């Protein structure tokens, strides 16, 4: 099996599995006052410190959540409600249209049900959001509740200059949220240095468990809770802490971030060989997103594990199926809840036409990827694309 869908989820690290297994055998509610409770709380708080340390945040800025979707919902809705509550003219959201659906659908829900307005940011053909574009959309910022721009795009892997965007937002007094689910562990992420007010991250994209994530939230950022109850997590996210998952999240984050530089080099080299090999086999295949060697503010301008390609004349879902039948697992990058392939909203946002958006595949590499994985793709991609193109011709 050739697993090239690490952006969907990546295998758990052995040290995470060991740490979680140990914790799962222990009793104790981190909110209880007795010895078992104290032991659980200690494990949770050590994890909070470890995660904060890995990401340049203070421990008190770490709110544990159920994952990326919850963190995005909490940031967008919670910051919107709190900011509009403080000043009713702040009804506008300024958001990139290439965000993950956890952000997009939260925004659309606020527009539909809660009187919000939205300004969609223009996206560069590379997928990047520029500070000038944000500045123009914000205007004087007085009517803006919150802005949200992802650190790195989950489909095409393009990184935006989040520190510059945060400075732009702050210049007019607007808080910036960033979805860094794909960025953490792949590119340098420092919460304090970036200046953002809220940052979404999740465990299972970097070798941790599913169902565990965090929202990094500046201490001075007001955020209205989604979940009410026992008042855990600064009263912003009630619910009994899932200590084992939190331990796993922290071990995964700490380990992956500490190995990031070396891993990025290895994974990036494999990715480059994959893209070069595929374009040699299929000369009209087209790389979507930023160039492979793109640089931004001293770091990579594209996620090192991301290869997103369009194959003109072939349907992404046919390619995926043919590769799956040959033991190669990748993604078309976008699927709705019904499992029906739709043209990627990200590619449409960067100006691709529907045909190019439908003809794309995402290969995403990670910590277990090898040269053999790349070879497996290069062995079959030519005939697979040819066959998919023949199938495509039969359709109107």
């Amino acid at each position, binding site marked *: 099996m050739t697993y090239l869908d690490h952006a969907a989820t990546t295998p758990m690290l052995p040290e995470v599995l060991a740490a979680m297994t140990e914790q799962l055998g222990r009793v104790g509610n981190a909110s209880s006052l007795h010895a078992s409770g104290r032991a659980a709380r200690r494990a949770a708080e050590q994890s909070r410190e470890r995660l904060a340390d890995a990401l340049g945040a203070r421990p008190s800025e770490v709110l544990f959540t159920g994952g990326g979707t919850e963190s995005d919902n909490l940031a967008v809705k919670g910051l919107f409600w709190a900011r509009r509550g403080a000043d009713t003219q702040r009804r506008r959201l300024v958001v990139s249209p290439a965000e993950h659906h956890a952000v997009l659908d939260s925004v659309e829900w606020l527009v539909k049900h809660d009187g919000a307005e939205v300004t969609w940011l223009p996206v560069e053909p590379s997928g990047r959001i520029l500070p000038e574009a944000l500045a123009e959309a914000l205007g004087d910022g007085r009517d803006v509740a919150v802005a949200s721009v992802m650190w790195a795009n989950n489909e095409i892997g393009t990184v935006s200059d989040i520190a510059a965007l945060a400075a732009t937002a702050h210049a007019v007094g607007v808080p910036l949220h960033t979805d860094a689910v794909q960025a953490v562990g792949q590119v340098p992420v420092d919460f304090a240095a970036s200046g953002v007010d809220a940052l979404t991250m999740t465990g299972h994209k970097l070798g941790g468990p599913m169902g565990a994530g965090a929202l990094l939230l500046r201490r001075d950022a007001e955020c209205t809770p989604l979940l009410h109850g026992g008042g855990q997590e600064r009263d912003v996210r009630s619910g009994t802490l899932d200590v084992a998952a939190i331990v796993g999240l922290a071990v995964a984050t700490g380990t992956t971030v500490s190995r990031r530089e070396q891993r990025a080099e290895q994974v990036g080299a494999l990715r480059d060989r994959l893209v070069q090999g595929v374009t040699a086999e299929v000369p009209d295949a087209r790389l979507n997103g930023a160039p492979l060697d793109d640089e931004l503010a001293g770091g990579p301008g594209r996620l090192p594990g991301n290869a997103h390609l369009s194959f003109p004349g072939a349907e992404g879902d046919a390619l995926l199926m043919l590769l799956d039948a040959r033991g190669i697992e990748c993604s078309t990058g976008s699927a709705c809840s019904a499992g029906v392939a739709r043209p990627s909203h990200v590619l449409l946002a960067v100006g691709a036409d529907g045909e190019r958006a439908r003809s794309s595949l995402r290969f995403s590499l990670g910590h277990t990827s090898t040269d053999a994985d790349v070879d497996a793709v290069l062995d079959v991609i030519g005939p697979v694309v040819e066959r*998919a193109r023949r199938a495509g011709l*039969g359709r109107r």
Partner: protein
Amino acid sequence: MRVLAAMSGGVDSAVAAALAVDAGHDVTGVHLALSQNRQTLRSGSRGCCSVEDSHDARRVADELGIPFYVWDLADRFTEDVVDDFVAEYAAGRTPNPCLRCNEKIKFSAVLDRALSLGFDAVVTGHHARLAGGELRRSVDSAKDQSYVLGVLTPEQLAAAWFPLGGTTKDRVREIAAERGFAVATKPDSHDICFIPDGDTRGFLARRLGSLPGPVVDATTGATVGEHDGTYGFTVGQRKGLGVSAGDSRPRYVLGIEPVSRTVTIGTADLAVVDEVRTGVPTWTGAAPALPARFEVQLRAHGTPVACEVSAADGGLRIALAEAQRGVAPGQSAVLYEPDAVRGDRVVGQAAVADAR
């Protein structure tokens, strides 16, 4: 053999896929997303293309350990089946959308795509027998679906596989239960999948709007009522005419004239026909030498009638041994060669153009 199993989410296609796996083939499941509004929840036993049905199909595929994908054919289905259905009614005819779907979607768009992608055959849960290129009725006469497959050509049949033709529906449910499929007790789908509330007249009214016209008595020539659209009527229809013709004898729709939007009604003796004219036929095998004696079935679940078939004006003339009521233009006349042992063989079909 590499086979593509079309999985609707119902019990039949689930068992058909399972039998294909049992037979040792390399099976891939596909659910066809046909509805433009997939979030519609299943209501009762109608429909086969909601999100819930897609989940049901996926569950079975996962239990069988086969790959499963959803193919979005909603645009083609809308164009080739739904719009065609509306246009046919607007033209005063009575179409069979399931037959059209088999002709244009399942055994055309899907089959073509499957063959292009390297599959050898498409397997479905239709109740019909197919062996040696001969399409025959199912052993379960109550569940036989050979009528809606009658439009298939030899080329289409060559790449089709119907594993359930020799199995009764009750046995299909037993097999599903033995395998622990949750769909074992799922109700049969019936009616038209894109009209989930079963209200065909209401569906057509929403699509076509009010197109009023007269209801005329065939005997007197008198206008006896008004209607909101000819699409609310089918030749042979007795109930819901909404007119009083002056006596207590039941009236039937005899004809629909779409240009003047005239619906003609008459008494039972006028509603029967013994000769049917059709458009260009399709054959499931080599075209038979005509004239020839066959049985003809004029609607899904209709009773077959002995007939003599001859060529006429590019179409067929079908002389019925027994007069029939309610033979509507647009319906498919499917011809069978009776065979009590192996099952009646489907010879071909043609759309009814006129009946007298």
